C-alpha cells in the first residue's frame, strides 16, 4: 500500500484526535496561561501554576488523587492475579465463575459507585442488615467506608471495576503459552511459589503494566466516582478543577485549567514511564503476550 493511501485511511481518525483531543489540550494550556482573558487581569504567564502549587488544597488533592489511583491499581492487580490464577484451572462451575468475573466490565463506573454508596454507606444495606441482626447497636456504628477522608469507598469502587479488566489480560496470558513455561519450570525443580515469582510474574508483567497504565490514568482523572463517594476534603483533583472552573470569580478559570493540565501532565508522565519500561522488557525479549 502506498504512503498516500495509508495517510488517507488514517486521516479520519487523526482529524478526530487533533480536533477533539490535541486542540482542546492546547486551548486549555493557553487559557491556563491567561490567554484570551475576559477579565481585567490580562497578564499572560504561569501565575496560575505558581498559585496552585503554593496552595495546600491543591497539594492535598494531588496527594489524594495519586494515592487513590496508586492503591486502586495495586489492589486491582493483586486481586486480578489471584482470581486469574484460580480461574485458569478446570473446575466445576468455572464457566459461571468466569461470567461473574467479567460481568461488571461493561457496567458504568457511575453505577458501580452508586452500588457502593447504597451498600457500604452508614445508611446503606450492609449497615442496616448488621443493625437488624444486632451486630452493631446503631447504623452510625458501621465504619465510615464512604465519604471518608482516606477514600476507601472510592478505592473499593475502582477495584470492583478495574480487577476484571486487568484480570482479562492476565487470564488470557495464563490460558495460553505461559502454562508451558510453568510446566518447564516445574520439571526444573521450581515449586509453585517459585514458579510464580521467577517465571509467571515476570512474564505477566508486560500485560499487567499495560492494563495498569490505563486504570491508573482513569482513576487519577476520574470525576464521577470521587464526586459520589469522596469526602469534602481533600477533594480529588478533577473535582477541585471543576469547582474552580464553575466558580463565580472568572479569575479562577486559569487555575482550574492549570489543575486539569496537571492531571494530564501526571498521566502522560506515567504513560511515558510505563512505555519506557515496556520497551525495556521488549528489548529483553518479553513481548506483551508473554511469548519469547
Amino acid at each position, binding site marked *: 500500500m502506498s504512503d498516500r493511501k495509508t495517510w488517507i485511511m488514517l486521516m479520519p481518525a487523526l482529524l478526530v484526535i487533533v480536533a477533539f483531543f490535541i486542540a482542546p489540550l492546547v486551548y486549555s494550556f493557553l487559557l491556563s496561561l491567561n490567554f484570551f482573558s475576559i477579565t481585567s487581569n490580562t497578564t499572560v504567564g504561569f501565575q496560575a501554576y505558581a498559585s496552585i502549587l503554593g496552595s495546600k488544597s491543591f497539594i492535598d488533592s494531588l496527594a489524594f488523587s495519586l494515592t487513590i489511583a496508586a492503591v486502586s491499581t495495586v489492589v486491582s492487580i493483586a486481586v486480578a492475579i489471584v482470581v486469574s490464577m484460580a480461574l485458569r484451572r478446570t473446575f466445576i462451575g468455572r464457566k459461571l465463575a468466569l461470567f461473574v468475573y467479567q460481568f461488571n466490565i461493561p457496567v458504568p463506573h457511575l453505577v458501580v459507585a452508586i452500588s457502593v454508596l447504597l451498600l457500604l454507606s452508614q445508611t446503606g444495606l450492609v449497615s442496616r442488615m448488621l443493625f437488624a441482626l444486632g451486630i452493631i447497636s446503631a447504623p452510625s456504628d458501621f465504619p465510615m467506608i464512604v465519604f471518608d477522608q482516606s477514600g476507601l469507598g472510592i478505592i473499593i469502587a475502582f477495584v470492583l471495576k478495574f480487577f476484571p479488566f486487568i484480570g482479562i489480560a492476565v487470564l488470557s496470558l495464563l490460558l495460553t503459552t505461559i502454562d*508451558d513455561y510453568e*510446566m518447564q*519450570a516445574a*520439571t*526444573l525443580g521450581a515449586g509453585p511459589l517459585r514458579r510464580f515469582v521467577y517465571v509467571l510474574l515476570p512474564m505477566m508483567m508486560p500485560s499487567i503494566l499495560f492494563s495498569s497504565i490505563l486504570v491508573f490514568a482513569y482513576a487519577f482523572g476520574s470525576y464521577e466516582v470521587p464526586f459520589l463517594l469522596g469526602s469534602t476534603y481533600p477533594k480529588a483533583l478533577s473535582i477541585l478543577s471543576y469547582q474552580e472552573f464553575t466558580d463565580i470569580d472568572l479569575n479562577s478559570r486559569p487555575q482550574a485549567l492549570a489543575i486539569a493540565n496537571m492531571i494530564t501532565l501526571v498521566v502522560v508522565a506515567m504513560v511515558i514511564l510505563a512505555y519506557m519500561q515496556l520497551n525495556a*522488557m521488549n528489548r529483553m525479549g*518479553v513481548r506483551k503476550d508473554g*511469548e*519469547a
Partner: protein
Amino acid sequence: MTFMELRSLTKRYEGAKTECVKAVDLKVDEGQIVVLLGPSGCGKTTTMKMIAGLIEPTSGDVLIEGRSVLSTPAEKRDVSMVFQKPLLFPHMTVAQNIGFGLKMRGVPKDVIERKVKEMLELVKLEGYGGRRANQLSGGQEQRVSLARALIVEPKLLLLDEPLSALDAELRLEMRELIREINRRYRITMMFVTHDQQEAVMLADRIALMVDGEIVQYDGPSAFYTRPRTRRVAEFFGWTNFVPAIQKGRTITCCLGEFTFPGLEEHDGPICLTIRPEAAVLCPEDQGYRAVVRKAVYMGTRIDYEVECLGSRLGISLDSERMYEKGEEIHIKLIPSKIWAVKCDGKTVCDNRVVWENPAPFKTTSGGAGETIAPSVLDPPKLPSEQSP
C-alpha cells in the same frame, strides 16, 4: 536393570469419551534411550507429562528405581523435560536460563556459574551466556533448553519432540549431541517423536504407540524385520499388504499357496506384508510379470508402483535404469523382507516367526534368503475355489 516402569498407565481427560493413554506397560533400562514413537495425537506427550508429574494419571503407576512417584510433585521427581518448543524464559539470559534449575535447588552462585560454563561448552555455545533468548537461532535455543535440563543431572531426561521445529541439518547435529550426552553421562532418556527415521537413529529401544496403546516395544531393527501388526508395518514403510487366507498351516494368496515351518494353526484372513525392497529384477522366465504404473526417482533408488498378479505393489529398485510407465518388468521377492500379520491393525498378532527358519516359502533353492518366484509356487487357490 529396570530403571523406570509404567504399569497400566491410563489417562482419560475430563469429558473425553475414550482414554487418551490406555493401560500402557513399559520398562526402561538404566542408561537407555527409549523412543516413544507414534503419529500425532496418539498420547505420547500425555504419557511423558504423566511420567514428569505434570499430568495426573487416571489410573496406573509410574515407578522410578522401583518406587512409585505418583505422590511426588513434578519439582521433586528429579525428572527433567525438554519440550517441543525451547521455552526459554524470555526475561532471563542464556546463562540464567541454564542455571535456573540449580538456582531452584539452592546451589551456590559460584558453582552455578562453573556448571553453566561447562554446559555451554557441552552444547557448543561458549560465549552465548549473556544473550537473551530472542538473540538465538532455533537450534541454539533448543541446545540451551537441553543444557538447562541436563545441568540438574536428572535421573531421567524426557525429550518431547525437541527437534521437530529444526531444519534437517540441525536435527542431525542435535541427534548426535543427544547420543553423545547419553554415552557420556549414561542418563536414561525417553524421547518422543513421530519421525520413524529419527527414532531408529536415536533409540536403543522403540515403543510404538498407536491410539494410546503401545503396539510394539522392540529394538529398532525389529520394526523393519518383524512388525507385529499391520499398523506397525505401515508406520515403518511396509507399503504392500497382500490379503491372504490361512487354513491350518497353509497360507493362500495371489503369490501362491505355501506353508511356514513352525506356523501356528489358524483359520481366517491374514495379511502378508512385503517391503518395497523385497523385490529384485530377474530374467523373464524366473519371476512375476509386472507392469510399471508409476516411477519416482529417489536418487540411489527408484520407487515404482507396479501391477502384478492383479495387485498393485510398491517396490523399490536400484537406479541403474529407470523403467517408464507401461513397461513390463519381471521381479522376484526376497523372503526375509516378507512378514505375516493379522489383518486387524489393532490386534497384536502372536508374532509368528515366519522367516526365522530357512525356506519359509517354497523357494528356488530351498534356502533362507533366496527369492520367491512363480515357477516354484503352486498356483494360488482362492478360498472360493477351495473345496468345502
